[in-house]
């Protein structure tokens, strides 16, 4: 299939991204370049210099809200992309509202407590909605341990499900970027299934 056909199909969809750190910012960039129609992104943080080792921000954006900085960067990549940002801390109360019209949701948090909260909220609110999670990306090397695991029809886990970030095992651009792009790749694959289905019928 030609890229234009893929892009035209992906333009119909809205993807929700929960968190705009290492996973969320890099995943959003990959989706913007792929031609997704609309992104809904939420984060309450600001860009700090310590984020620049892996997150899709620039040194001159330090101090900006991540949602605003990411919106700027995504617009520079793909001016046709529709972007809705929420400068808010996500919770079990606001997730069902913020992501209500998303076709698929990407979990892109740093903390495992937030990952748990989002997974529970999404699965309880929309049991059939695809959810792409990131779990296990700390340190460097061990590329072959990063993998995608599909659970049921709607849940995808990207990462090694083993490594946890710490002072001795920091998150770094290569592995975080791989997992973020694995998540974007899973989103594209899921959304293209309907195109392949349409083409056959």
């Amino acid at each position, binding site marked *: 299939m030609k890229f234009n056909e893929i892009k035209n199909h992906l333009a119909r969809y809205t993807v929700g991204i929960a*968190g705009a*750190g*290492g*996973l*969320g910012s890099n995943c959003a960039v990959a989706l913007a370049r792929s031609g997704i129609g609309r992104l809904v992104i939420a984060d309450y943080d600001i860009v700090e210099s310590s984020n620049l080792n892996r997150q899709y921000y620039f040194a001159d954006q330090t101090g900006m809200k991540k949602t605003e900085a990411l919106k700027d960067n995504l617009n520079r990549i793909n001016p046709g992309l529709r972007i809705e940002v929420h400068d808010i801390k996500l919770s079990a109360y606001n997730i069902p509202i913020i992501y209500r019209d998303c076709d698929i949701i990407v979990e*892109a*948090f*740093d*903390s*495992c*407590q937030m*990952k*748990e909260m989002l*997974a*529970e909220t999404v*699965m*309880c609110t929309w*049991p059939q909605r695809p959810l792409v*999670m*990131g*779990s*296990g*990306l*700390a340190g460097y090397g061990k590329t072959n341990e990063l993998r995608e*695991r599909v*659970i*049921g029809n709607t849940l995808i*886990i990207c*990462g*090694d*499900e*083993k*490594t*946890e*970030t710490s002072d001795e095992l920091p*998150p770094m651009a290569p592995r*975080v970027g791989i997992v973020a792009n694995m998540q974007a790749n899973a989103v594209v694959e899921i959304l293209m299934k309907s195109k392949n289905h349409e083409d056959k019928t």
Partner: protein
Amino acid sequence: MKIRLNNRPEQFDRDEMTVTEMLDIKRFSYKMRIVRINGKLIKRDDYDKAVIRNGDDVQMWYLMSGG
């Protein structure tokens, strides 16, 4: 009893067990995880109550910090 755990067949020497019991038997000690039985989410507070029976499909995945 026979179940499927993360798509692999597993056998346990009992008729049924709670999620907590399965985690003990399998020595799954890492705390941050999601568990589903036949696709139904089991919240952490319900691990002592939720019963796994013969033929059930149990899915479990770990939540690691970092992103």
